[in-house]
């Protein structure tokens, strides 16, 4: 939290605000947590964040949430499509060789993923959807190995940084 000193002549700091004067030039929008009168002529502004910081953080968070949901929806769509072919194979509407050929197009190559990012994704997904996901489902969504998912879940459950 930054602190700015407001005097009758102006603000000592980076913000161009003059007490009692009309706002000219660039407009500053900020979240002010508290204004405290320090002395007769001095005010302290407890400043939480600027509007620019706030909007940047908000857009970053929104983009992250969208990305998390998109990954989950894509995995679900792929799973549904695969199940259609799998059902066709199980009901003898397709030969084993034909099914093997099709299933190659759905095959997942496990990728390495940063565990901190994975933890954020899992926490966001479970918070937003309020659903339980098992290791296998999460491994399908993020295309990684189940052992990494296990580590991430373990971290979330115990809040201990994995080794």
């Amino acid at each position: 939290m930054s602190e700015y000193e407001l005097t009758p002549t102006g603000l000592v700091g980076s913000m161009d605000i003059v007490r009692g004067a009309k706002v000219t030039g660039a407009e500053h929008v900020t979240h002010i947590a508290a204004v405290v009168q320090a002395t007769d002529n001095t005010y302290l502004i407890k400043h939480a964040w600027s509007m620019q910081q706030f909007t940047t953080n908000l857009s970053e968070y929104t983009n992250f949430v969208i990305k998390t949901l998109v990954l989950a929806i894509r995995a679900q769509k792929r799973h549904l499509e695969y199940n259609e072919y799998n059902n066709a194979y199980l009901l003898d509407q397709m030969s084993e060789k034909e099914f093997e050929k099709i299933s190659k197009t759905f095959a997942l190559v496990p990728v390495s993923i940063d565990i901190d990012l994975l933890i954020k994704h899992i926490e966001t997904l479970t918070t937003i959807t309020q659903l339980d996901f098992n290791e296998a489902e999460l491994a399908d969504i993020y295309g990684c190995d189940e052992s990494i998912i296990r580590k991430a879940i373990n971290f979330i459950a115990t809040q201990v940084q994995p080794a």
Partner: protein
Amino acid sequence: MIATALGASIEGKEIHITSRKLNLREPRVAPQQLLLYPFRTGINSKAEIIKELVPKLTRIKVTSRLDKGDQLVGVSIAGHAEKPISKAALVKGSGRHKAKQIKARGGSFAEISIPRREILTQQASNISAPHNSVTLTIKKR
């Protein structure tokens, strides 16, 4: 031999899996460019080796059981097969319920991911029991 502990696993050329809940997932590419067909079961699951691996060596987990007739019993069993999972057959389940049975062919692997409830309860009680609560009985000669 029947294994019931969490993480117990079997490997075989053909494994029969019996369960009331079955989830077949998209295949995965193994490091040797093999296509693996994963499965996951839930509710009263059992897996049994029908055909042994040739050569009879573990491929996935060193502690896996490899003998014909070796079984896993648990709530949920996860694993994979090298060939597409066959059509499920309806077999006798527990009590009045029927269960599905699938055949995992090729180099197949199955592992207990959730043990039976009584095993979990036993584990939980072992953890929660204080050390000084153990009573020893000494018989007089």
